[in-house]
């Protein structure tokens, strides 16, 4: 075992089984491990104990409106892409209490009710997902008003990223510039080869977690193999998207006939917004106890496809599916740039896979561009 911890930016290799040592180091440091695991016929993100919980030897076949698990011919640890969950489930829980109000002598007292943030170690964050986290950072931490709960969970999170060498059928991260290799922001990044992981050290904290692991500097041949695998992945994207001048394209086509056409297929179910790793819309619920003495305000995920999302007195701004789909798409690919300086899509393909009728954003945008 080397005496030194690896330096930031170094590429080292470890035997695959040694990943457990890294996970043990994270647990010893007080992290709750969250990573991919099999549940109800899909690969989801949940709390895990170690490498044994990873969906080793499984892969996913994804197409519009279709997700199937399959056995792999090898026993790769990360031989699949992204499932219905994303890390926003942990950084921005679907339901959280934001304050509690207690009635007292004709008035009331406000109690700040942010729960203490768990320390998560995210295992297996892909390139698209790393960018999705950066995008939500801009939403919740980049403006004059910040979300304290998001900030607490985000600041404590450890990111163990994984480069994708086998993109899925609905992936288009190469078009969005978010993958297949992970961009900046991780603590450790893995590339899985046949019998080793190449680990890139992204932070001092990441280096510390390698201390108990038997590592050696990565060899030139191994690094070349990893580069080749990523180049191959870039060529094998299931989808692609021309991102040229998207804001003007969409803003100038707010009355395009395609919106009517897609509205005939769209069920307005909101699945795309639930699985999207960047969608951040939330609603506030008011909950009271039966005695009417204590009250809570609760943040819950909301969707621009829900009926009362745009409600103002006198009616809804967007009563028709056409307007709601247009809102979602133009927000994601145009107004997001005005709002947060970055495009709102990372090319993960979840909205295509999990749309019950298989609406494909890349196809819709191509149609508006006039290329179908």
């Amino acid at each position, binding site marked *: 075992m080397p005496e030194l911890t690896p330096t930031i930016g170094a590429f080292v290799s470890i035997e695959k089984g040694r990943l457990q040592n890294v996970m043990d180091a994270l647990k010893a440091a007080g992290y709750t491990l969250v990573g991919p695991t099999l549940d109800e016929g899909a690969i989801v993100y949940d709390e895990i104990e170690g490498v044994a919980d990873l969906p080793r030897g499984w892969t996913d076949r994804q197409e519009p409106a279709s997700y199937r698990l399959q056995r792999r011919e090898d026993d790769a640890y990360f031989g699949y892409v992204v499932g219905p969950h994303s890390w926003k489930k942990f950084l921005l829980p679907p339901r959280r209490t*934001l*304050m509690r*109000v207690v*009635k007292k002598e*004709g*008035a*009331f*007292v*406000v109690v*700040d009710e*942010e729960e203490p943030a768990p320390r998560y170690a995210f295992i297996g964050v892909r390139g698209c997902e790393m960018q999705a986290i950066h995008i939500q950072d801009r*939403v*919740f931490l980049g*403006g*004059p*008003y*910040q*979300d*304290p709960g998001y900030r607490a969970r985000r600041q404590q999170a450890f990111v163990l990223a994984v480069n994708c060498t086998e993109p899925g059928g609905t992936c288009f991260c190469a078009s969005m510039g978010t993958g297949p290799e992970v961009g900046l922001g991780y603590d450790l990044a893995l590339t899985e080869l046949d019998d080793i992981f190449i680990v890139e050290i992204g932070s001092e904290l990441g280096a510390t977690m390698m201390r108990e692991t038997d590592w050696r500097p990565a060899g030139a041949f191994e690094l070349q193999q990893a580069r080749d695998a990523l180049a191959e992945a870039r060529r094998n994207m299931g989808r692609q998207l021309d991102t040229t001048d998207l*804001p003007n394209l969409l*803003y100038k086509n*707010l*009355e395009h006939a395609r919106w009517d056409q897609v509205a005939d297929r769209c069920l307005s179910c909101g699945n795309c917004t639930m699985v999207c790793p960047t969608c*951040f*819309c*939330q*609603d*506030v619920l*008011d*909950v*009271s106890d039966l005695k*009417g003495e204590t*009250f809570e*305000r609760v943040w819950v995920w*909301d969707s*621009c496809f829900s009926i009362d*999302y*745009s*409600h*103002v*007195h*006198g009616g809804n*701004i*967007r*009563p*028709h599916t*056409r*307007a709601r789909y*247009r*809102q979602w798409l*133009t*927000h994601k690919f*145009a*107004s997001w740039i*005005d*709002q947060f300086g970055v495009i709102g899509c990372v090319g993960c393909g979840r909205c295509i896979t999990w749309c019950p009728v298989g609406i494909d954003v890349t196809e819709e945008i191509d149609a508006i561009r006039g290329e179908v």
Partner: protein
Amino acid sequence: MLNTMTTPTAPVPHPGPMLTFPARILEIKEEAYAIATYQIAFESEAVRKTYRFRPGQFNMLYLPGIGEVPISMSSDPAESEVIGHTIRYAGNVTRAISRLQTGDVIGVRGPYGSYWPMERLIGDDLCIVTGGIGLAPLRPVIYHVLRHREQYGRVYLLYGARTPKDMLYTDEYEAWKQQGIQILLTVDRADPSWRGNVGVVPMLFYQLRLDPKKTAVLTCGPEIMIHFVIYEALARRISKERIYVSMERNMKCGVGLCGHCQFGPAFVCKEGPVFAYAAIEPFFGVEEF
């Protein structure tokens, strides 16, 4: 895209942007059918002393267990220890507010949003055009003008309501007129007492001779009214940059974190509700946008 955005400031430091502060109702004044003005003051002296708002901004008013509602301030911004909100009883929260009495406590957080650019308008003629309860977020403008009368040129108030009984703040008009605000009123339906104009608000433009180089238009009201106010203002060669519009969308959080109030590139709660028309022109009037 939106070149005239103003960055809002929140003078009250928030431990969390969604935390509300208890405030007591000091006075309730019936203004018209199902419309009343609530004068409130924060319970905490520290909050009361630091709170400031600008004309056109709004607060989120909260009733425990019922919900929150965005309401713009309708009182004098120079006197911010007691804050006025003119409320129309329309939805769940406002109907619950209608059952409150003087001395009751509600939650208040704010101020939020952009404001009428009173500094930028110094030296200009102001044409305030509004309908119904749209006068409420413009009353602070009038109070500001009255306090700084010498800073502004001619000031017109073009105001319309459904019937004479629906007009707001009628007991103040005389004082406003005496301080040089020219008031033109119209109603959709007259009653026997009414001797004035009957018709829609934008028609009042035809009674004025505006100087397009000096005039700024400030408008708030139903979107269809705003649409024709813009039409009349542009027809008089008033530039898009000098037509200011207060927009309404579903403002749920007030701080740009919930997404509900989006209007194209803008969060109406953050970059709005007051916009220069030039900034929203590509999106204004797009059906269901």
